[in-house]
């Protein structure tokens, strides 16, 4: 095993998938010769050539649309959208097309497509480079959505997405690309889609977080621990299809839940989770579910992004509120 950053783990996963199966290819803006603007596809062009590490024209709708055609026709394309905020340009193809290929044809055609995109703030990026779009996908039956919080999960989830028979969006938290290293198994392995991870065990409050917010939740949990509050942290890993049982089981144990998300709170994934626990575990709850997230406005210019992003302090306040309820 080697210690790797998330971006290295992603690069290794892509290389192993391409090595193992010649139907797998990567495509997108600057993914070939340049190896991707974040180097996720570094050296794949040299190893697999321009037909499998493809520099496309600058058109996200074209990238996803043609990747759908490739997938339907038997290849396993892994399309990169340079920043998740530019998947807007591809939404028609994702939401109105990729999501419905299987359904529309009653399984005659399928779309084993992977779309990778970095997302999230905290890296001082320009407008639209920090947008976080899981809620828009959650509301689109037919698309899957996963987001790793660790290098190990980044590799395993990406390989699971490539194996998956349906379209999967792999949302990679930009801020975690190089933030830390961990041991990542050398061999090809998968992390199952649809299964949450217990990131920290606790008994007083459950925090549900995913992707970029897992470190924030863990930090808040640690701070609470120092004050004698035992906090459980669930790393959702998959947004669609969501691991509802993992959330319910934890809430039945702790009786309190705070959801931490980076995207604006209204209409977000947290709202879905709050509805889930209200519908299915209301009698276990000692306090209303609370959400901590981005404010209900577009992502701000990066000079003031710290004021927008959830902080461990804000999460801590929410923990105190559910405890005091």
């Amino acid at each position, binding site marked *: 095993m080697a210690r790797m950053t998330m971006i290295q783990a992603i690069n290794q996963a892509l290389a192993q998938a391409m090595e193992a199966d010649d139907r797998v290819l990567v495509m997108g*803006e*600057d993914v*070939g*010769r*340049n*190896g991707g*603007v974040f180097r996720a596809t570094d050296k794949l062009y040299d190893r697999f050539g321009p037909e499998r590490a493809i*520099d496309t*024209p*600058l*058109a996200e*709708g*074209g990238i996803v649309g043609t990747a759908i055609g490739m997938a339907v026709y038997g290849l396993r394309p892994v399309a990169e959208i340079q920043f998740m*905020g*530019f998947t*807007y*340009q591809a939404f028609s193809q994702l939401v109105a097309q990729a999501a419905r290929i299987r359904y529309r044809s009653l399984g005659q055609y399928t779309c084993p497509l992977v779309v990778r995109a970095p997302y999230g703030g905290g890296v*001082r*990026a*320009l*407008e*639209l*480079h920090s947008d976080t779009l899981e809620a828009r996908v959650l509301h689109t039956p037919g698309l899957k959505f996963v987001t790793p919080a660790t290098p190990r999960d980044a590799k395993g989830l990406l390989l699971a997405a490539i194996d998956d028979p349906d379209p999967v969006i792999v949302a990679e938290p930009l801020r975690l690309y190089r933030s830390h290293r961990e041991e990542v198994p050398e061999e090809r392995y998968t992390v199952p889609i649809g299964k949450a991870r217990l990131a920290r065990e606790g008994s007083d409050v459950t925090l549900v977080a995913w992707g970029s917010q897992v470190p924030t939740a863990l930090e808040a949990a640690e701070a609470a621990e120092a004050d004698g509050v035992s906090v459980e942290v669930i790393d959702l890993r998959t947004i669609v299809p969501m691991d509802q049982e993992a959330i319910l089981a934890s809430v039945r144990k702790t009786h309190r839940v705070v959801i931490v998300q980076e995207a604006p709170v*209204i209409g977000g994934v947290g709202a879905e989770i709050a509805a889930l626990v209200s519908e299915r575990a209301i009698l276990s709850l000692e306090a209303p579910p609370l959400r901590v997230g981005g*404010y*209900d*406005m*577009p992502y*701000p*210019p*990066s*000079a*003031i992004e710290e*004021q*927008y992003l959830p*902080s461990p*302090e*804000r999460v801590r306040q929410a923990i105190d509120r559910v405890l005091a309820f």
Partner: protein
Amino acid sequence: MIRVDVSRRQILAPDGKLVGEMPALGPDTLRDMYRIMVLARTFDQRALNLQRQGRIGTFAPAAGQEASQVGAVFAMRRDEWLFPTYRSHPAMLAHGMPLDRLFLYPMAHPLGGVAPPGVAIYSVAISIAAHLPHAAGAAWASRIRRESKGFVALFGDGATSEGDFHEAMNFAGVFRAPLVFLCENNGWAISVPREHQTASETIAQKAVAYGFGGEVVDGNDVLAVYQATSEALERARAGEGPTLIEAQTYRLGPHTTADDPTRYRKPEELTEAERIDPILRLRLFLEGRDLWSEKEEAALRAEAQESVRAAYQKAQETPPMALGDLVPYVYAEVPPYLAAEREEMNGWRV
């Protein structure tokens, strides 16, 4: 009749010799063009340095593209709208954007890139090509209002691959929008060379398919760009519809400060590009006509340094805005829940 000219209009050769018909520009205007180009380059270099020192954020240099932008803006009236991108600071400067606002943009201050009242510059386009339908719509609206105005939209060669570019071209053609599509073909879209972007031999020829004229110009020749844009704007103001101009130029610097062009460009390319530098070319021309001297050059360089220094200082002294200050700009009226969130933001900040 639709005319597409791919012969690459040139008025000044790289050595500053006049090789085409001189446009009707007086000595003062020519010197002004030169001053703005030098000021833009000075700003560019200063911004790059500040970024390297970690004092400002990501910056997209425009060095090498001053002629394509300044030439086009000199053909515009001040009341005509410019649609810029993240690489348009020479054009914005020429069209009246204060230098300190240009610094505020890479400093990620909310005022960065916001034109002061009366300066006809649209918001900076970050989503590639997404501003082009807006430009077509604004120009079309001006036609509906029976005005006699021209509009200019800037974009790169990469942008011509986006659906938004094609839809904007088509709408502009169908509704005869008075818009000049000014494509700065700088050879690269980050690491992707022009040849990979489109199988068309030129970008200009795409205009034919949309029913209007197009032209290739030497984008490092400020006079050629000025002349081609002037003619296109004249046609636009006269109700004759849009034009696509492909200004062939070269990005001398990295795509942005986050990019490493040595991964995809050969060093020889840069040597050639420096030979055809647009600023050098205009200077040689002015000197050849005795319109410019060593002394004026030295004075201009010093003056440009000082303007840029003062502008950066002013930018630094601009009061910061808090997140809560942006709340009134989400909607005309702040919804109650957002007002409550604003309380929390402000409370949390202190």
